[in-house]
């Protein structure tokens, strides 16, 4: 009994902080999503109308929301595998006994993660420049015509994917590196004695050993990538032809540009539900595979 009270005392400060700064705003946002809170409601609460689920219906009926959702899913589908492969590749290289100056390389590869998006976006905008950009210059030498990276609705999202993968792979690389180092060396030794090739050692020792870490990394990355915002915000402002408007960017414009806070809250809860469903599905998929 006494220890129970002590336990509550210990968690109380954290609970209060979470309550005030997390639970309360979330509940308020949920309530707001059932109203048409906008600039007129800000002027006088008489102009605030309770609209039930109308915001959700409106958002689900808005073509731009579906376009934003499609853009976001397209981004995740492109960026997730690319991001995981890049991180894994970089981690394997760093973990290789042949690698020299490991500390230096680790820092260099991690550097994009800690730089500010806005600053590197300026550099990348020049890299992507149709006429003077380094990327088109290299492609030109390979005989590939200039790509209008940020101006062509088909290429703008892949361009953002490249930027985002470059910006973020270092973070997952560090986690995967830790995972690699946790795999017992004697497993590799045993495999080598059994005559397993490097490829078979990777497939049968490294990958199974990394499985829990890879799952964690995938979930974090999916949740992060579904909340795509900074990259289109600084690189394209949702253009061209709204081909880089993500769900979160759509929410930002509704809320802070047009001040339709009710609708913006509805978008937030829809996105929350979506991320929840996708990560649950991923977990279930992995569990059934493990069970089999």
């Amino acid at each position, binding site marked *: 009994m006494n220890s129970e009270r002590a336990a509550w005392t210990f968690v109380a400060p954290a609970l209060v902080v979470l309550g005030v700064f997390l639970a309360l705003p979330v509940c308020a946002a949920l309530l707001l999503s059932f109203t048409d809170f906008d*600039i007129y409601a*800000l*002027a006088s609460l008489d102009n605030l109308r309770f609209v039930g689920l109308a915001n959700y219906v409106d958002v689900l009926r808005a073509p731009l929301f579906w376009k934003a959702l499609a853009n976001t899913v397209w981004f995740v589908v492109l960026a997730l595998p690319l991001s995981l492969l890049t991180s894994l590749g970089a981690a394997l290289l760093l973990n290789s006994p042949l690698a020299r100056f490991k500390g230096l390389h680790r820092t260099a590869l991690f550097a994009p993660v800690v730089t500010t998006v806005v600053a590197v976006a300026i550099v990348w905008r020049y890299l992507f420049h*149709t006429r003077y950009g380094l990327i088109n210059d290299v492609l030109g030498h390979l005989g590939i015509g200039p790509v209008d990276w940020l101006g062509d609705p088909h290429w703008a999202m892949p361009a953002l994917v490249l930027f985002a993968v470059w910006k973020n792979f270092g973070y997952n690389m560090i986690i995967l590196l830790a995972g690699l180092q946790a795999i017992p060396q004697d497993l590799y030794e045993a495999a080598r004695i059994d005559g397993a090739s490097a490829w078979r050692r990777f497939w049968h020792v490294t990958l199974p050993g990394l499985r829990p870490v890879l799952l964690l990394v995938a979930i974090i990355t999916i949740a992060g990538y579904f909340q795509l915002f900074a990259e289109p915000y600084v*690189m394209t402002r949702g253009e061209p*032809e709204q081909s880089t408007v993500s769900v979160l960017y759509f929410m930002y414009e509704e809320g802070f540009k047009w001040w339709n806070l009710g609708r913006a809250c509805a978008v937030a809860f829809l996105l929350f539900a979506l991320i929840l469903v996708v990560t649950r599905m991923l977990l279930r998929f992995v569990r059934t595979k493990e069970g089999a």
Partner: protein
Amino acid sequence: MSSFGMAGLARIAAWATMFALCSCAPAAHETTLKLWAFGPEGEAVGKLLPEFERAHPGVHVEVQNLPLTAMHEKLLTAFAGDALPDLCQLGNTWIPEFATLGALEPLQVYVDKSDVVRRDDYFAGIWDTNIVDSALYGVSWYVDTRLLFYRKDLLAAAGFDHAPRDWDEWRRAMAAIKQSQGADKYAIFLPLNEFEPLLNLAIQQSDPLLRDENTRGNFESEGFRRALDFYLEAFREHWAPPLSNIQVPNYADEFGKGYFAFYVTGPWNIGVFKQRLPAEVQGHWGTAPLPGANGPGGGAAGGSSFAIFRASKNKQLAWELVEFLSQMKQQQRFYSLTGDLPARRSAWDFVELETDEFTHAFRAQLELVKPMPKVPEWERIATEMQLAAERVVRGGESADAALRALDAKVDDEILAKRRALLARKVRQ
């Protein structure tokens, strides 16, 4: 090392003395007037204020500079949090929004008593931007309007000795420049993500942009269609590249290289081009009033006004500051500091403005400017308008379908609440 130490010590001693002196100054009965302004204007206004403070002992004006991009959000959150300053620089397209919020003090009573702020000295279209539902909520500070910046040498090479005055001349000039410049250069740059060029062509028309007391879109009107057709023609004929301003990160550089010869933009670019265009282009560019269908057509009234917030406890004092900054002399000093064009005609009687040939076209166009529709939703509507135009240019949608969809979107989504609130007001 030791000399550095000595210098450091001396500096600390100086600071300490200064601090001691400052803390002796009377602080108790001092009134602080809070003014929010955009970055460059805020910096410049700081240099005008000592004179005001000398004339008002015991008054201290605290200026807070905010970046233009953050100002709007900051003002709205400050309104919600009851933390607005006494007065502020308000972009004149924001006035309807803050008037709707009930955040602004009506100023007509102050103007009636004033012998500094006199309505007939202000450009009519500019003054009008301060009036919402027949109440006055602002006093114009400086003005802008978008007009034609052009390369004289490229125009001359294409066989024209003067800037186009109407759309026909403009068409011929663009076709000739494109012809003489070749396939990889263009006659004009109309950034596809900026609504201003199309808006300025559209506002020249006699059909209003919104109808039914600003509760419905009027984009299927004949006038708007005429403006859009002219705009689209520039892309169809390849006079304009189908690019956004993000794809042309350094427009001054491109203008200098002759990538385009016409650019529809505002007075801030006078300073930018003077500074950034290469020496061989200096003397070969100019400004001209925006051509209309038949002769100079005017454009949208832009710029900033002073607004006093209703929640201020020092409204009279705030008004005195507005009056001070509206004096002809202060308007002229402000122009010298920032290059922002004065809102009063009398302030244009100034040698610096007369000797700067680039400002003359602005002086002429300011007599013809019109305010944009005065509803809080306007910026969103203008953004949708541009998206519709972009869909036609880049996506190949037909102009008819794009305009029909635009009017429907404006009516059913953007202005629906405004219409409902107005209907409720009428019923009451």
